[in-house]
């Protein structure tokens, strides 16, 4: 596991976990502005950004994150995007975070089924081509090319910056192959999360074409999250509307008492 720390306020830490699985923390760095107030701990693992490729189930990954998180003496908020939000949620059920934040995270097989249906029904020709290359030959190059072709499934605006971001990412295709069934196979994460008493925030882009916000909201309510939609954003609100995403996170954390035990 590799942690990149940004920001000096060690009294108020946020651990940030990327999605995919298999994307690195690079795209989450759009939230560096939070480092003015918080210490950000960007987490890479299972092969992303040069970390060791480890075959771990979600529970073992959560245990590793917990082990790191509990070294932060002043406490921590767990934040994850998409699959990373699922890992953050699993970790939150076995430790005591100050708070949990999920962004665009499917937490049920229902949400994953919507993602699968939307993917199969709305794939562009380019995406079908990249998918075939990915399936014919699993590698980080074909994995990145596949993800970079999602287009409107991921993004509200057709911006070449996002394509470029994924093509240059230091991904782990093995992480994806090993763990992409985790969410669908986990029937209990929402039940466990709903029973926790720390503050929970769920952020979703209003224009998410991969998983409809109305479906994500069902998961958010089942897990007793506060639900906050972000306008003018799809599946990656931190990229398409970073200002609003950051202010939503900051406003939420600011309401939490400084120290939770």
């Amino acid at each position, binding site marked *: 596991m590799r942690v990149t720390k940004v920001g000096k306020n060690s009294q108020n830490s946020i651990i940030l976990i990327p999605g*995919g699985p*298999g994307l690195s923390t690079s795209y989450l760095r759009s939230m560096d502005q939070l480092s003015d107030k918080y210490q950000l701990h960007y987490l890479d693992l299972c092969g992303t950004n040069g970390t060791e490729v480890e075959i771990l189930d979600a529970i073992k990954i959560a245990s590793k994150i917990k082990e790191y998180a509990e070294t932060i003496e002043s406490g921590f908020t767990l934040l994850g995007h998409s*699959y990373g939000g699922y890992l953050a949620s699993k970790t939150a059920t076995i430790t005591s975070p100050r708070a949990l934040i999920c962004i665009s995270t499917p937490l049920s097989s229902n949400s994953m089924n919507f*993602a699968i249906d939307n993917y199969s*029904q709305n794939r562009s020709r380019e995406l*079908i081509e990249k998918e075939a290359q990915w399936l*014919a030959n699993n590698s980080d190059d074909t994995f990145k090319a596949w993800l970079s072709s999602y287009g409107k499934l991921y993004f509200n605006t057709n911006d070449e910056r996002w394509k470029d971001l994924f093509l240059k990412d230091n991904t782990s295709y093995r992480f994806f192959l090993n763990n*992409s*069934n985790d969410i669908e196979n986990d029937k209990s994460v929402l039940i466990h999360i709903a029973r926790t008493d720390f503050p929970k925030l769920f952020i979703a882009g209003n224009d998410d074409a*991969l998983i409809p916000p109305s479906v994500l909201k069902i998961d958010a309510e089942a897990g007793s999250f506060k639900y906050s939609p972000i306008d003018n954003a799809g599946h990656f609100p931190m990229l398409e509307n970073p200002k609003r995403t950051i202010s939503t996170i900051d406003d939420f954390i600011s309401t939490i008492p400084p120290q939770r035990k």
Partner: protein
Amino acid sequence: MKTISRLLILFLAFASLAQVLANPKEGEINPKFQDGNDKPGV
């Protein structure tokens, strides 16, 4: 001769099936999407 013809037909049938499986159509999920390959990236 008959045996060779039957083997050839069988071979061609399998080759065609492999071709179909390798090329997904728009709107279809590729049947090779199995065991970790059947989910989109989230």
